[in-house]
């Protein structure tokens, strides 16, 4: 390993931000916190984007690795032990200074700190802990901090870190155990899910405890009267929080929740498997976000799929769309895909695709339909659905009203009526008609998301395709579905 200790801070920053960029999470949302009066910084619940890189992705946090030394040899990773790259590490003070100075100048919302595995997972986690501890207590930093939990690290140090971070994340990396085994031989599913569960428990207990506190201090009723004894509370603490808890009673454990990330297109999983895994993570681990990262073959590893034609961006885009449907629109993974139909449609987004296959539920009357029914209409989002439900209390709404409220009529027009009328006469409730119109509208989206060409759709599978698409449409356009690219 080529370890350089004598680099200046600019070189280190170049190396360690370059090494951190494949972590996609960049959100700074989930915590609303005012300045504590002693130092610098607050946090906005909605998160704030501070810049956009030349790949079009948002820059919200100073995203760096503590060190790019790594004892692991994951095939997909640019920092794997077998790669011959310059290795270096930040000192905690360097990271704190960069974070503070960038924050003062409004370059970032805070810090996103990850690391290669130095010596062993617990040692590495300890390094990360030192940084966030000092940043919060010595530098009085009140901005946003996202820290990686290192799988396999001792639970105590993970918990200690959680008291100073806003968000923590453990990367699932690959959706199946087999995928993980073949590409990341040093990691295993159990080691990844353990800290995830631990953080989930910590968050739950913390929320519960803060409520307990407000009961205790708010009404003056001691725990005993609720059937708790001081001892049992202490016992519960020791069990789920480990060793340290900051002195203040109102300390919050990972208040912005946890997230994870999966690599898309390095292994042969289909979209259905991915969405099902994501759904299970939301349900069983209470995650705030699952991120999808289009695979880039950085190591030119011959055992992995080539991404010379570009990473599978459209597939990633479709997965994010589906992810939103799971979290905010009341859809289930099984509504969107199935074993027989395991991949998303290239031409139209998952919600339109669902609507076209469920025409019996449409058209929906804007002035009558319930909130969740409105949410199922393509072109109507959570904001516009809420506005419609509120505004129609005082007036009958027409197409012009809802357009101004933010409904995308280009998509919605096939699925709605206002006061019993459709917007145009020529609209037919017919799959062919709707799909061909929607697909044209969606081409704009395709242009926006990247330099994606049809060449990148590596498989033309007309059989699968014919199953999904209405007959007439399939003959008109002989393109295939984007599949696993494997």
């Amino acid at each position: 390993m080529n370890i350089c200790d004598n680099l200046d801070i600019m070189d280190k920053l170049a190396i360690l931000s370059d090494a951190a960029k494949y972590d996609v999470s960049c959100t700074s949302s989930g915590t609303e916190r005012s300045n504590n009066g002693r130092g610098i910084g607050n946090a906005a619940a909605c998160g704030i984007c501070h810049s956009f890189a030349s790949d079009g992705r948002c820059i919200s946090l100073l995203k760096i690795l503590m060190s790019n030394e790594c004892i692991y040899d994951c095939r997909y990773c640019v920092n794997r032990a077998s790669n011959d790259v310059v290795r270096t590490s930040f000192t905690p003070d360097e990271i704190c200074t960069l974070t503070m100075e960038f924050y003062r100048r409004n370059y970032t919302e805070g810090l996103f700190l990850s690391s290669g595995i130095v010596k062993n997972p617990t040692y590495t986690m300890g390094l990360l802990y030192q940084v966030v501890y000092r940043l919060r207590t010595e530098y009085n930093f009140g901005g946003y901090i996202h820290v990686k939990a290192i799988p396999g690290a001792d639970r105590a140090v993970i918990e200690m870190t959680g008291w100073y971070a806003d968000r923590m994340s453990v990367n699932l990396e690959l959706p199946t155990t087999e995928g993980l085994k073949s590409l990341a031989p040093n990691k295993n599913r159990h080691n990844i899910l353990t800290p995830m569960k631990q953080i989930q428990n910590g968050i739950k207990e913390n929320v519960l405890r803060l409520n307990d506190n407000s009961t205790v201090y708010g009404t003056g009723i001691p725990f005993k009267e609720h059937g708790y004894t001081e001892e049992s509370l202490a016992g519960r603490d020791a069990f789920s929080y480990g060793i340290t808890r900051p002195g203040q009673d109102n300390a919050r454990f990972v208040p912005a929740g946890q997230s994870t990330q999966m690599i898309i297109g390095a292994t042969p999983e289909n979209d259905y498997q991915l969405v099902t895994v994501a759904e299970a993570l939301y349900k069983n681990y209470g995650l705030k976000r699952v991120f999808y990262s289009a695979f880039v073959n950085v190591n030119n590893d011959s055992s992995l799929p080539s991404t010379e034609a570009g990473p599978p961006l459209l597939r990633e885009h479709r997965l994010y769309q589906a992810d939103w449907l799971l979290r905010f629109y009341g859809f289930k993974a099984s509504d969107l895909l199935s074993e027989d139909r395991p991949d998303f449609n290239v031409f139209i987004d998952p919600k339109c695709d669902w609507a076209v296959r469920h025409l019996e539920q449409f058209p929906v009357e804007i002035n009558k339909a319930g909130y969740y029914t409105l949410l199922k209409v393509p072109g109507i989002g959570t904001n516009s659905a809420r506005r419609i439900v509120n505004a129609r209390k005082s007036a009958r709404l027409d197409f012009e009203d809802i357009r101004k409220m933010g409904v995308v009529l280009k998509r919605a027009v096939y699925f709605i009526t206002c006061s019993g009328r459709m917007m145009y006469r020529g609209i037919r409730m017919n799959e062919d008609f709707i799909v061909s119109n929607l697909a044209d509208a969606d081409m704009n989206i395709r242009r926006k998301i990247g330099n994606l060409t049809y060449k990148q759709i590596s498989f033309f599978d007309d059989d699968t395709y014919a199953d999904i698409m209405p007959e007439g449409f399939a003959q008109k356009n002989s393109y295939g579905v984007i599949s696993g690219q494997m």
Partner: protein
Amino acid sequence: MVVCCCDGTVDGILTAVFDAWAAGVNDSRISIGKGNIEWFADYIDVVTDSSKASRVAAKVIDVMGYDAYEMIYFAAVSGADDRGEAIFGFIRKGLRIGRSIVSDLHDKYVMRVFELHRSSQREYQHVRGFLRFRDYKGYLIARIEPKNNICEILMQFFEDRLKQERFMIIDVIRGVAGVYDGNAGYMTGIDDDMLAGIRNMEITDEFGSLWNVFEDNIAIKPRYNPKLQQQNLPLRFRKYM
């Protein structure tokens, strides 16, 4: 018909609402500046009076709720010529029907205030992220060129965030600046000569070049997509970044 002409500031518009009310609600209008002079209308020059404005604001918050006041505020800082008219219509109806006014989007005045609020609020959120301070002898200085008059609300945001710092946000289009000295903040005007100097001033900051190194390295080259970058970060925000 009575037309109340105001200076277009938030206080000015709210003062005009007060005066228009006094002149008879149904027979008055609010205009920013003189506008097109009409026959058969009386013109009143409204003198901005912050005590009148805060009485209107208090009444609005009391009857229509804080959300409604926020909508009015953001509509008032927008650059649209019809904002006075829209806000007056909004308040006139709102005082009658109360808190539900914010969702009565079928009404044309409510919809207009909603639209103005949305666009200036969006710009505020963008600038909040894209604004850059440069360290000049211990003072943090930021220059902005927003379409809407959002300097004051930006100051509120940064006064909480950078409580221990001394900083200044300068709107180089309108010639106004917010100044915060580590304890208290105030707004001030800047004359044209000084403004020209501020516009062309070069402030070098060593952390600026460190940040550029970071921005360059964080992009994933195979995903290079300047069009998407420009869509998310329009050129007009980049001038002082």
